[in-house]
């Protein structure tokens, strides 16, 4: 029973701000995203530069970088996730309190980036952790990170807390925890979390377009 937009618009012009309870919660959550203090590689330096004086992520309410995963609600995976680091990243994701969001910042976090041929590099964190927003670039400019943060904020504002396609954290069926991979003799076991990672197949053959 959300408020229908044109009524809301006319009321707003008359100075009365009408909103639904759901929109209020989403507005509150989107404007107070506290990132986890968790930088991996070069993108972490650009993330720090985004919080510095020139780009100032604090304007979006995302200034408080909490070192403990308990108090953070946004995990910005900034940098290369190696296979040795993957279990720690997944454990950190599990320890974050719901509702939690993940931004994959930079080519390495999305798909392994320039280092995807490496034997110790995980080809993208979305093999183990559900990712909300991806920001390409190597490293993406601080403005690109702010653009990704604003994209996440608009996504949170449209989240539904009830109904069929409700938000991930609101539906009891989707588990908040993600199984933590274990170190195997040659690779992580399992090498990807099939419940989360299901890529489309692209028709690729040298002479078949």
């Amino acid at each position, binding site marked *: 029973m959300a408020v229908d937009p044109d009524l809301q618009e006319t009321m707003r012009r008359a100075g009365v701000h009408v909103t639904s309870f759901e929109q209020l919660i989403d507005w509150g959550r989107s404007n107070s995203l506290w990132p986890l203090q968790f930088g991996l590689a070069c993108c972490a330096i650009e993330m720090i530069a985004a919080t510095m004086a*020139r780009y*100032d992520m604090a304007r979006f309410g995302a200034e408080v970088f909490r070192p403990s995963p308990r108090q953070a609600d946004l995990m910005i995976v900034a940098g290369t996730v190696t296979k040795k680091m993957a279990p720690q990243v997944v454990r950190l994701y599990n320890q974050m309190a719901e509702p939690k969001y993940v931004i994959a910042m930079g080519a390495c976090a*999305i*798909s392994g980036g320039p280092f995807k041929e490496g034997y110790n590099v995980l080809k993208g964190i979305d093999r183990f952790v559900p*990712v909300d927003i*991806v920001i*390409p*670039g190597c490293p993406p400019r601080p403005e690109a990170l702010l653009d990704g943060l604003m994209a996440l904020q608009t996504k949170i504002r449209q989240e539904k807390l009830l109904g069929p396609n409700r938000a991930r954290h609101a539906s009891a069926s989707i588990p908040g925890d993600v199984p933590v991979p274990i170190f195997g003799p040659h690779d992580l076991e399992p090498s990807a979390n099939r419940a989360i990672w299901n890529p489309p197949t692209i028709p690729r053959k040298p002479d078949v377009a």
Partner: protein
Amino acid sequence: MSAAPKWIPPGIGLLQGLAVTGKNFIGSFFRADRMTTVQYPEERVTLSPNSRNIPFLVFDGGDPDTGLRCVACGICEKECPPQCIYIVLDRDENGKSLKRPKVFDIDASVCMNCGICAEVCPFDSIFMDQEYELSSADRFKGLLFDKATLAKSATYHAKIRPLEAAAVAERKRAEEAKRAAAQAAKEAKAKADAAKKAEAPPTISNARPAGGSASPPDLSPTRSGQESDPPKSTQPTAPEEAP
């Protein structure tokens, strides 16, 4: 530094530190160099013309499909360090190359913005774009840029990189001039042969048909791009002789 160790009253260092932060606090209200924030969505940092992010393909004229400069030679595909370019050459029905890419995909989620593809391209057909707002919710569809999204007009290139576009245009003009001159020289020579043949006795029947079948325009790249680039040998990753 005076010989005897100068006695420093304690607390002075703390006050000096407070003075610095105080000066910055007061200054942030009045002086521009103490309030350096560029409020991103409203104000933007003016990018330098050299700035580079994800590459784009240039096309002359209006229609991206026909005007694309790229001839699918695959040099950028081989030279790209993270190997994030995928080119399939367009062939007509009987397999003759149309010197045009049928598929030209760049995986933006792997590209490392290094600019080597633009540096090694002999045809000035790929340059580095300055567009950085590419964040998306979906990794698979959102970040695999195909030929349509990559193609941008030469005027766009001139807008973001005036000097480089001017240099490319000037080079192209020089090429055109050289080709035209070569063309003119060829016609002149053909005319001269025809004239000489006319005076010479008509006994020798010249097998070559009359001038006019000028040699097809030489499309080989004028800028000396080395062709003899060995394919990336598969030796390091999957060698045959296992110990």
